[in-house]
């Protein structure tokens, strides 16, 4: 069964950090440039995220993720470059259409923002096991019931995707067409998805019973299988990041008051 998570254990510095630290890093990398209103800060965070990812030897895995949004950024670039209101300075004249400087700069700003968010998320996602993330949150007071729901997703979705290929094969062997005109493909959708839906609902019934007999609803304080893995560096990083966020908010308020 294929795992959904992008996490990879490389025994790197990022792997050793507490998930909480990395989550705060994500928040800081998004909020600080937003509050300070300075694009160069976002670029700085981008480069820093990239260095971290390179240091953990997972930079290769960010490329497909960047590719997904890269395509959308490309359409933004084209549309804003051609049509943005306030476009005046022509940069590239291509016969009937022309790219304008203002629109392209605006699109560049969007691209920086988007890639910054993606890279800082990658720092968290590529170096943290989802279950560790949830466990750490539960330790901090997050509902353990919702925490269970979240972790179980990473097991359930690959299971359902497996079932999906079984059902596709079964329906095809009964002669169902999955290719052809739009109408044929539309008609194929319901017979494909309804067996998955029905069987997963029936599964929920069994899963609910299985959980309840194991004391899922017990009100007692929950204990943890793994020990908290916080290292001293974590606290230092958290303090720096929080100070950074507070400073950027302070800066924003100052500029407003002026």
């Amino acid at each position, binding site marked *: 069964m294929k795992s959904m998570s992008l996490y990879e254990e490389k025994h790197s510095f990022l792997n050793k950090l507490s998930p909480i630290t990395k989550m705060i890093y994500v928040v800081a990398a998004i909020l600080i440039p937003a509050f300070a209103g300075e694009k160069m800060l976002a670029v700085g965070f981008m480069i820093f995220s990239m260095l971290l990812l390179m240091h953990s030897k997972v930079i290769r895995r960010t490329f497909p*993720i960047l590719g997904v949004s890269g395509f959308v950024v490309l359409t*933004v670039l084209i*549309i804003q470059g051609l049509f943005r209101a306030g476009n005046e300075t022509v940069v590239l004249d291509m016969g009937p259409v022309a790219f304008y400087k203002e629109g392209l700069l605006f699109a560049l700003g969007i691209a920086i923002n988007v890639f910054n968010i993606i890279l800082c998320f990658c720092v968290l996602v590529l170096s943290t096991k989802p279950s560790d993330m949830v466990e750490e949150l539960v330790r901090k007071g997050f509902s353990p019931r919702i925490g269970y*729901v979240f972790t179980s997703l990473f097991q359930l979705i690959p299971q359902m*995707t497996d079932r999906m290929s079984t059902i596709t094969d079964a329906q095809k062997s009964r002669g169902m067409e999955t290719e052809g005109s739009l109408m044929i493909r539309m008609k194929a959708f319901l017979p494909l*998805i309804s067996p998955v*839906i029905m069987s997963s609902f*029936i599964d929920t019934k069994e899963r609910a019973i299985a959980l*309840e007999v194991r004391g899922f609803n017990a009100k007692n304080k929950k204990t943890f299988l793994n020990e908290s893995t916080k290292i001293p560096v974590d606290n230092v990083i958290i303090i720096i990041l929080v100070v950074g966020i507070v400073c950027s908010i302070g800066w924003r308020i100052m500029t407003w008051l002026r």
Partner: protein
Amino acid sequence: MKGKNNNSPWSLQFNTAALVLIPAAVGINYIGKLFAGVLKLPLWLDSIGTCLAACLAGPVVGAIAGAMNNLIYGLTMDPISTVYAFTQAAIGIVVGLMAYYGAMKNVKGALLTGILGGFAAVLISTPLNMIFWGGTTGNLWGDLAYAAVLSQNASTWIASTVDEIIVDVPDKIVVLLLVMGLYKNLPKSLLSLYQSNSKIESLD
């Protein structure tokens, strides 16, 4: 069955079955999106699970399922989609409320729910699109409309709203019609499982 509930649809007391419905719903969203991709359909169809969960277990479960759906996308495929968790949560709430007041019993009600859900999505997605993408959605037809509206010298907000309406509303209508068909055909024994706020006589 619905409408006779004594408690409010906002009850946070859900039973275990309603809770494990959430991962199933997210899984269904995921599969719906995959199938739509495999069959090359021009719709997303990625909120079937959210809407079904909302119909079965109410707006709160629907909202959690929707939000978690996008968190999972964010953690496994596309980090930006995390922010659209709010959109999916809104869809869950709208559909859950409509189902609670009995709209999901016929085609007319489902159509209305689809339109309302679609516009709830537009209402929340448009500002997010403006912040993160300058107004476009990355969907071919929507973005063509965006460019067309923009070239008429309209504001980016109007262009972005039109873009989002084209992308979201037809999709939500199809999804809700599908969901109604599925919801009406679910076995009764399954339906009663998730109704944690319907009145139960206790023997002890």
